[in-house]
């Protein structure tokens, strides 16, 4: 087989790699021959895709089903304002093709699922997981284990990041630990930080996604020691970094096939279990307000959310609702709301169960729906 060659323009483009003795044209050749799949083109995907493209990875696949939203631009520096509303994969391609014309891109404007994951991932040598939810993380992990692909993992939350290289085959062909060795199962949805407790410092994915890109390049070129069997932790607030050892969990059953990951992560389960509560639409709320009807409006979000947008309701955060039963009317119609309607429904169930109240109504769609349908001056978040 003839060696992969480079044009004059490519040699000049990559000259800063070629003059590193340990990297040289051999490293560049491995990059050019490599096929890397980036799952998620958001916060982590932005540095990942840009550095892998700039570095000269020959074939790059991008999976994302989302469209560019204004609230992405705080951290997803791959996109610009004129791309709002466009599919992220198309917006990414536009930027990346302008950055490096010597790369073959393959865009998948779809959600990675148990049905398509194996088909998509099998075409690639290395996978980089830049997703933002547990079901997709377990899906990417299991597909990589089944197909024997290394999975360069990074995850972020608020001020903290994690990086590792999962399922990496050493020189003897032994596979290192994977995501299930670290976390055999995900936290149930009720325990994971909900939207009120989400958020991420905009620069954090830039830092962590760049480390992830560096690990992808090491895995592809075989340079240095990939972060296999180790987990890197970064806390931007304290600037503490730690690298801890990861081991295989002998109790883990081998992954043989893909499963229903929404179910595995307890998401579908929860939807079935929840008891319905009485609802009121945002239009009905507006009518009640305009007619000066007697009712009580309670906002169960957190104070820092109230600062972003509010409907003038009494602020009683979900966690304190039961302690504030005295403030909740037993006679009047009481309308509870949150951001999207999930937390306020939880509050209603708690109150109905504990105090047998029958005068509680959930604002369907929460303040987001109100901002969409009634008051367009409200900020959505």
């Amino acid at each position, binding site marked *: 087989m003839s060696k992969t060659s480079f044009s004059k323009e490519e040699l000049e483009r990559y000259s800063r790699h070629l003059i590193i003795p340990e990297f040289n044209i051999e490293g560049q050749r491995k990059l050019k021959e490599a096929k890397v799949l980036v799952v998620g083109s*958001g*916060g982590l995907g932005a540095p990942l895709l840009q550095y892998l493209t700039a570095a000269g990875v020959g074939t790059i696949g991008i999976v994302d089903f989302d469209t560019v939203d204004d609230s992405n631009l705080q951290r997803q520096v791959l996109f610009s304002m004129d791309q709002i509303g466009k599919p992220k994969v198309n917006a990414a391609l536009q930027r990346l093709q302008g950055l490096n014309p010597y790369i073959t891109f393959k865009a998948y404007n779809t959600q990675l699922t148990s049905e398509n994951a194996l088909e998509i991932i099998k075409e690639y040598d290395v996978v980089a997981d830049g*997703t*933002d*939810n*547990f079901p997709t*993380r377990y899906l990417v992990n299991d597909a990589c284990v089944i197909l024997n692909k290394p999975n360069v993992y990074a*995850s*972020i*939350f*608020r*001020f*903290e990041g*994690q990086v590792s290289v999962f399922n990496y085959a050493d020189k003897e062909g032994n596979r290192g630990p994977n995501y299930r060795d*670290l*976390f*055999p*199962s*995900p*936290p149930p*949805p009720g*325990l*994971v*930080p*909900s*939207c*009120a*407790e*989400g*958020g*991420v410092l905009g620069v954090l994915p830039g830092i962590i996604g760049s480390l992830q890109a560096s690990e992808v390049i090491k895995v592809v070129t075989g340079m240095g020691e990939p972060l296999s069997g180790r*987990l890197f*932790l970064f*806390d931007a*607030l*304290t600037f503490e970094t*730690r*690298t*801890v*050892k*990861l*081991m295989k*969990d002998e109790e883990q059953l081998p992954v043989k096939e893909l499963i229903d990951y929404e179910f595995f992560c307890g*998401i579908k389960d929860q939807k079935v279990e929840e008891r319905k509560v009485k609802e009121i639409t945002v239009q009905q709320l507006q009518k009640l307000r305009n007619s000066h009807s007697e009712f009580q409006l309670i906002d169960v979000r957190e104070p820092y959310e109230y600062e972003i947008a509010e409907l003038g309701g009494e602020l009683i955060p979900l966690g304190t609702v039961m302690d504030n039963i005295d403030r909740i009317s037993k006679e009047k119609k009481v309308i509870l709301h*949150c*951001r*999207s309607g*999930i*937390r306020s429904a939880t509050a209603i169930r708690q109150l109905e169960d504990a105090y047998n109240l029958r005068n509680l109504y959930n604002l369907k769609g929460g303040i987001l729906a109100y901002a969409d349908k009634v008051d367009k001056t409200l900020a959505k*978040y």
Partner: protein
Amino acid sequence: MAKLIIPTPLRKFTDNQGSFETEGATVQEAIETLTELFPDLKKHLLEADGKIRSFVRIYVGDDDIKALDHEKTSLNNDSVVSIIPAIAGGSAGEYE
């Protein structure tokens, strides 16, 4: 006294405190003292039977306590106990 590091997602249960000094002689004692102080933390760390939950790892120094003496791993004055939780991303929409 050993040091106990609380990760960001769990700091809401510790009045936003990120680390604690602990007099516990073992990991188990350190966790027990912590969860007595902050009872809401308990269900995020421990199963009903007291085992560490499957989406949390406990490390002493660089080592998973599973590679040491599990919950009975002893602590000394220089020990740093880290609680490492599963995090998926800062997405707002996934669960709400």
